[in-house]
């Protein structure tokens, strides 16, 4: 018993230390918001006020911020699953975008089927996105081609093809927007916090976190996936079919991205708008890195990123900076988040 208690205390201590290190990194990133505002804005106080408090000032902005975190949760989960198995999925941009387009088109043509059609359209979107990521997994399994590079290249090409499909064959001529036709009214998710965009997709995202958590820690397949990621040789000699875990996690990862894209259509956009998902894939990756691939940590990490984006948007609307300062802040996070020196800053040396 005493030993167990000691172990529990040790786990808590590591948790606090890791958390402190990550908080430090996020604080450094936020300090850069202040520096950038002082350098770039003529009214820095106003800019900072809108950046930090804008997303929290009323239910409209707050709801929109929460809504912005939904695709990041899906993306973060997707990348986490892949990383846990030792794979890297860099194709989030293409997967989320193609998943969204497939879901939109299927939803329009499956409208007569009602709720079954809505469900099918989501599944089809996730499948296409999953297959897209699966290609990279397959290439790695078959010929050891780096999935990191192939998933990125494939995604870049797919984004361009989807752009073409949206602005060409599937363009809705009745609007001036570069977008497809809208999905049927009956398929749209109810709003949770009007007048904001926040939709029922949020509980679905939280459900997805629970499912991924249970899969990773409570199923045989999840165990095998984690083992393969921790030590592929150990896993292989332990009798795990490691080749399978080069493909399956990539497919799941892509499918989660695709689902995120599909739900963004059902909950927020109602049509595939050209480049609507631009940046979501990369942010999903950042979220997974901050969360250190832990599904439960994906939610706070996604909220942090959504907060930065919402803050930048609010500062852009009310002050004189552009939205892209969010990208700079995010890049600072990327710079520091994998640093062993910073992450171990609070651990005592020589004591394990």
């Amino acid at each position, binding site marked *: 018993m005493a030993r167990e208690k000691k172990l529990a205390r040790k786990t808590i201590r590591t948790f606090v230390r890791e958390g402190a290190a990550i908080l430090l990194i996020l604080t450094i990133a936020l300090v850069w918001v202040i520096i950038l505002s002082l350098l770039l804005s003529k009214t820095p106080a106003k800019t900072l006020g809108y950046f930090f408090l804008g997303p929290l000032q009323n239910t409209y902005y707050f709801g929109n911020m929460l809504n912005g975190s939904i695709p990041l949760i899906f993306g973060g989960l997707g990348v986490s699953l892949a990383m846990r198995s030792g794979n890297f999925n860099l194709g989030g941009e293409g997967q989320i975008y193609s998943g969204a387009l497939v879901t939109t088109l299927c939803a329009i043509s499956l409208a007569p089927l009602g709720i079954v059609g809505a469900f099918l359209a989501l599944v089809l979107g996730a499948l296409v996105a999953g297959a897209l990521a699966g290609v990279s997994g397959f290439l790695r399994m078959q010929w050891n081609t780096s999935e990191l590079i192939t998933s990125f*290249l494939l995604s870049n*090409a797919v984004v361009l093809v989807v*752009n073409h499909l949206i602005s060409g064959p599937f363009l809705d001529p009745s609007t001036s927007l570069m977008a497809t036709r809208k999905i049927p009214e009956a398929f749209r998710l109810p709003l949770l916090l009007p007048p904001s965009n926040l939709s029922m997709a949020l509980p679905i995202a939280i459900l997805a976190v629970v499912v991924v958590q249970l899969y990773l820690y409570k199923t045989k397949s999840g165990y095998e996936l984690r083992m393969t990621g921790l030590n592929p040789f150990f896993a292989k000699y332990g009798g795990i079919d490691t080749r399978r875990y080069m493909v399956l996690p990539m497919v799941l990862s892509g499918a989660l991205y695709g689902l995120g894209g599909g739900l963004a259509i059902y909950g927020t956009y109602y049509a595939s708008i050209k480049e609507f998902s631009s940046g979501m894939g990369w942010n999903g990756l950042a979220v997974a890195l901050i969360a250190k691939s832990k599904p439960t940590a994906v939610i706070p990490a996604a909220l942090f990123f959504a907060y930065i984006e919402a803050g930048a948007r609010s500062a852009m609307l009310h002050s004189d900076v*552009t939205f892209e300062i969010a990208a700079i802040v995010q*890049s*600072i996070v990327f710079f*520091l*988040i994998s640093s062993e020196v910073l992450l171990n800053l609070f651990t005592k040396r020589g004591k394990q």
Partner: protein
Amino acid sequence: MQFTIPILHSAVTIMTPLLLASMGGLFTELTGMLNIALEGLLLMGAFSSVICSHYTGSMVVGTLLGIACTMGLSAILAVVTLNLKSNVFITGLAVNLLSAGLTVVLCFSLFGNKGVVVFDNIPSLPLLGTPSLARIPILGDIFIGHSAFVYLSWLLLGICYYTLYGTPFGFRFRATGLHQEALSALGLSPNRYKFFAFLISGFTCGLGGAMLTLNLGAFVPNITAGKGWIALVIIFLGNKKPLGLLLAALVFGLADAFSNYAQGALQVPSDFILALPYLLTLLAMVGSSIYAKKKGAIES
């Protein structure tokens, strides 16, 4: 067949930034680091050199300052990666994200514009070549009459080859990637060579980026459009050898030049043409890994 000569001529222009970026990337690759920051470094080079040319009124000074800015960014990348012991892949992503964001933010605060910024005071790049050389049939048409960047890239390729294969400095570089411990055993610091490699990447990407914008006399957001990634693939396809880089860069230059031509002549959607470099790169990656696997199977 009249169109082949202009295509070849523009292929030589198009391949130059790719060749330059891949040369810098070769050094980081040889020290055992996958440098995905090439894209961001190129973009930073493109932006800073055109801005500096605009404000100093001289393309030479502007290019030099642009190179200095890009080397500064690569030095940050090196310090964070080596001294703070970060994952080079993730810090590389950070550089790409930072360049994409910073260039737009600075464009907006300097010119109040997030789109294309045209600089009227930047003249078009002078094209070099003596008439007597240009009169050589075919070869003269293809290789003469380019900007200084093109010839500079060839010169640098020679220097790169000599450095890597003819100097102790180059041997140590290659040793860093092959067997880091051997270097440490000699009392040399592997991290020092890695640091140099990042600086060299910054230098060549600064130069390559400068060519992109000075050619246009304008800055376009995301003007690099994946060129840094293609440079990375060129390193793999070129089998991590300087002359291989030249060949692989030429292949991409040709593909790009041809697709530019096809866009005008054939009725292919422009998005598909833009997607072509990525798909070709993908095919090349798969092809080279199949080859590597077959070769490995024979050897073992």
